[in-house]
């Protein structure tokens, strides 16, 4: 097994290990996401810190056994802080030849392969484009190999329940989970409880799944002495006492939006259109009607944002969400929200682009689109979440800015954050400061000016239905104060300046240094979901004595006021991004700093090692 995990020598359990990366890979019908999800819960209950990375195909039911139909779930768990889903797996569970072929190249040298040899028949080998059976031809020699006929073992374990072969084989993932639970010395009971709950309507099926789980676990116990299979124990990570839960980014966004609306004391209207990987936010919110949430599945992306703007006009908090292609369609409406100065939150769960690109893979390539991607001088604030838990707080922040400045706000996450789960210390909502919205309800002193402004340059929010404040708004240039149509040159200059000044003047917290010091040889500047690998890489390099610091930017636009000076206090600045250098360009433009790009656009997150290599190169 991996260097981080020491094998047990003579005792039942191995000594403390730092972190382990396990990757479950199988056909998209094999239930790998479910297996991974339940193993994640078990990691949480074992007190480990963890991060996960679900990696699944764009096709719903890809043809069985094919390379493009492989679905995988990676989890990194350990006894100290875990920020990423891990670089190279220590353990790969491969449920068929295609899963082995697509995943084994990333397995750590000397890592363990657990393969279901029952699936390595001629037909599946051919589908995976193997000329010879890799389990037999020695091509896997640099790893440890454990071949088990999981299919057959599962069918035998559930024989007494009289299931058909097809249903019996569907218990394979529970057999595999049982084995994994044994390998990492985990308690089976919570999983048994979960299975009984899940299949409450079919006790026979529940019993079969429990039997498969137990059989996998028992297999580990009895087969322990032979071969490479050993049991390992990963100690709990130190965590502050309190209530924890697993949280995905989509859940974080949905809950954060609800919390934001409540802090603003507004009903929420969410207009959405199905798109991967953003749909999960719509799904979560559509079940929360008791929180004064109305969800609307519109006829298209344009109608989704326009309905949200219509609701904001009516006095609700309008929210829309999509991914890159849908955000592109919403661009014109964003301009209208900027022109009419109505609050709106736009969530972009970024995915690989351009065009349809890689719908289920992650990327950070919509930063230009967020900051610049509209016709005209059309500035709007942009916030980026770093993790599922951070997405909760970013969503609240987005709502706050939207209502306090009467502006659309773009909130960026990505496919990795949306799908990944992490342990989250449930926050105490009473610690969040409310920012109740006040609507204008009567003519103020000096008369009503629909485009009059407060000290934040915010215009008043008036709900239709309010007597005495009747007015018209629209996308044609507005006259200062009155909001009437006005085409005059000086007025357009003044209004353009006001729109810019309003956004530039948004108060965002000063930039802090996440790790390291203000000033020094090298700053690694990141944003969004690259937080994890950058943080770990900087931590490791600092432990080796390198003069390197980590700066993570949450407020992409406007940027923190002190950021320019901070960046100039380092000899060198590198910017790792899952794009071809978008934040890098913004930083160079804004501060004339010689920021150097570190780029990866493979649809996969950075590994820690890749960032470490970039740091070494920059410091060389």
């Amino acid at each position, binding site marked *: 097994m991996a260097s981080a995990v020491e094998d047990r020598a003579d005792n039942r359990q191995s000594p403390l290990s730092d972190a382990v990366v396990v990757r479950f890979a199988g056909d998209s019908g094999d239930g790998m996401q479910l297996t991974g999800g339940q193993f994640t819960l078990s990691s*949480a*209950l074992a*007190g480990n810190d963890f991060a996960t990375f679900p990696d699944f195909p764009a096709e719903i039911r890809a043809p069985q056994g094919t390379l493009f139909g492989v679905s995988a779930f990676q989890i990194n768990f350990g006894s100290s802080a875990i920020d990423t889903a891990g670089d190279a797996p220590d353990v790969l569970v491969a449920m068929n030849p295609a899963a082995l072929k697509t995943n084994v190249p990333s397995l750590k040298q000397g890592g363990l392969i657990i393969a279901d040899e029952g699936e390595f028949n001629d037909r599946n080998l051919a589908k995976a484009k193997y000329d010879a059976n890799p389990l037999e031809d020695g091509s896997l020699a640099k790893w440890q190999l454990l071949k088990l006929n999981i299919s057959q073992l599962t069918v035998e374990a559930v024989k007494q329940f009289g299931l058909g072969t097809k249903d019996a084989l569907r218990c394979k993932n529970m057999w595999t989970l049982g084995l994994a639970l044994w390998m990492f010395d985990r308690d089976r009971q*919570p999983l048994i409880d979960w299975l009984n709950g899940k299949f409450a309507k079919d006790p026979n099926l529940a019993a079969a799944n429990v039997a498969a789980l137990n059989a996998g676990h028992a297999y580990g116990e009895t087969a322990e002495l032979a071969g490479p299979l050993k049991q390992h124990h990963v100690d*709990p990570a130190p*965590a*502050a*006492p309190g*209530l*924890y*839960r*697993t949280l995905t980014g989509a859940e974080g966004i949905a*809950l954060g939006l*609800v*919390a934001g609306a409540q802090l603003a004391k507004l*009903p929420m*209207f969410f207009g959405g259109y199905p798109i991967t990987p953003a749909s999960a936010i719509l799904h979560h919110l559509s079940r*929360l*009607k*008791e*929180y*004064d949430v*109305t969800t*609307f599945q*519109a*006829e*298209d992306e*344009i*109608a989704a944002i*326009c*309905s*949200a*703007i*219509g*609701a*904001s*006009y*009516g*006095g*609700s908090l*309008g929210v829309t969400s999509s991914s890159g292609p849908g955000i592109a369609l919403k661009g*014109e*409406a964003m*301009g*209208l929200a900027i022109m*009419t100065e109505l609050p709106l939150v736009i969530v972009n769960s970024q995915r690989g682009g351009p065009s349809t690109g890689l719908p289920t893979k992650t990327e950070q390539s919509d930063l230009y689109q967020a900051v610049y991607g509209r016709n005209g001088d059309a500035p709007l604030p942009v916030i980026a979440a770093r993790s599922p838990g951070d997405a909760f707080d970013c969503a609240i922040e987005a709502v706050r800015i939207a209502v306090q400045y009467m502006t659309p706000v773009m909130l960026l996450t990505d496919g990795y954050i949306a799908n990944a789960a992490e342990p989250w210390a*449930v926050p105490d909502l009473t610690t969040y400061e409310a920012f109740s919205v006040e609507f204008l309800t009567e003519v103020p002193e000096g008369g009503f000016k629909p485009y009059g402004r407060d000290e934040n340059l915010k215009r008043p929010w008036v*709900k*239709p*239905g309010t*007597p*005495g404040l*009747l007015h*018209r*708004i*629209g*996308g*044609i240039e507005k006259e200062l104060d009155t909001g*009437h*149509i006005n085409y005059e040159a000086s007025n357009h200059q003044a209004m353009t300046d006001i729109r810019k000044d309003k956004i530039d003047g948004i108060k965002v917290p000063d930039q802090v240094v996440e790790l390291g010091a203000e000033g020094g040889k090298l700053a690694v500047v990141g944003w969004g979901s690259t937080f994890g690998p950058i943080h770990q890489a900087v931590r490791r390099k600092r432990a080796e004595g390198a003069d390197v610091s980590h700066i993570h930017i949450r407020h992409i636009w406007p940027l923190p006021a002190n950021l320019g000076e901070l960046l100039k206090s380092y000899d060198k600045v590198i910017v790792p991004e899952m794009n071809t250098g978008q934040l890098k360009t913004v930083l160079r433009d804004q501060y004339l700093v010689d920021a150097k790009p570190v780029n990866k656009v493979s649809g996969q997150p950075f590994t820690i090692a890749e960032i470490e290599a970039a740091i070494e190169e920059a410091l060389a």
Partner: protein
Amino acid sequence: MNEMTTIARTTTLKDWETDQEVRWCPGCGDYAILKAVQRTMPEIGTAPENTVFISGIGCSSRFPYYMETYGFHTIHGRAPAFATGLKLANPGLDIWIVTGDGDGLSIGGNHTMHLIRRNLDCQIMLFNNEIYGLTKGQYSPTSRVGTSSPSTPYGSVDRPAQPAAFALGAGARFVARGFDVSKKLPEVLKAAHAHKGAAFIEIFQNCIVYNKDVFEDFAAPKGAEDRQLWLENGEPMLFAKGTKGIALDSVELHLKVVDVVDGDWQSAGVIVHDVTNRSVAHMLVEMRFGEFPMALGVLYDDPRPTFEADVWRQNKAASEGKKADLQGLLKKGQTWTVTESGPEL
């Protein structure tokens, strides 16, 4: 119109006029429609502050600036989507959508269809002038074949859409027709407002600059009796001073014009207009002018539950007995507690 629209108010035409300078071309049919609407509003008896005019882009879409109500001049073709969000946020508002043949049937055809299909409670006034006016005269989706325009110098070749047929096909529960200078337009507007649900009104409108008098063949006062069929619920479909009527050819199953002798429309087989008869409505919207008179007035009116009412009903039902306890919600799902001795479920 919505049952929740309870704020009634006595107003005059003046109360519905803004101080904004109207910027349509002199002689534009839009002026007559604006006056008709401003004249209708006091008769409806709603309050200006409870009324919202929402438009897209085009000549007709300037309409909200001239109504002393709340108004939202949005983006091209999307007015129905803004209206949907607004109505869901506040079902008590009385919403009027103003659109045109390009705005509502070309760039925004999708939204028009879905608003009608969902049956959002609002009035949709589609000003049909069979041309793009604001962009200086290109042919539109309702232009007749052969329309010569800057973008079709050799004449358009594509067949036009029929707004009323489109609306009915999309599932409309109210379809009416009128034209800009018609004295009967306010009655049509009132009927549309009285209908609870999406009320679609096609208003033929004369674009004096780019498509002048294109509806003159039926809209001209002279000979109007012979060329206009004004439909009245419960009344026989008669025109030409009662000397002609519309009957059903029961062999070939289509409508036909029949002569009525001495007012005996019954023996001529003239159909009595039933606004709830969907089959006849389908035939009325398809009646080709020339062979037939232009069918005007309320062609179809048969309400059913509205979208926003159903959404609110469902939201309420789904919330019943549930407490909005966000702190509790955060604690749901896969949770565990970390204590001094470690984690536990």
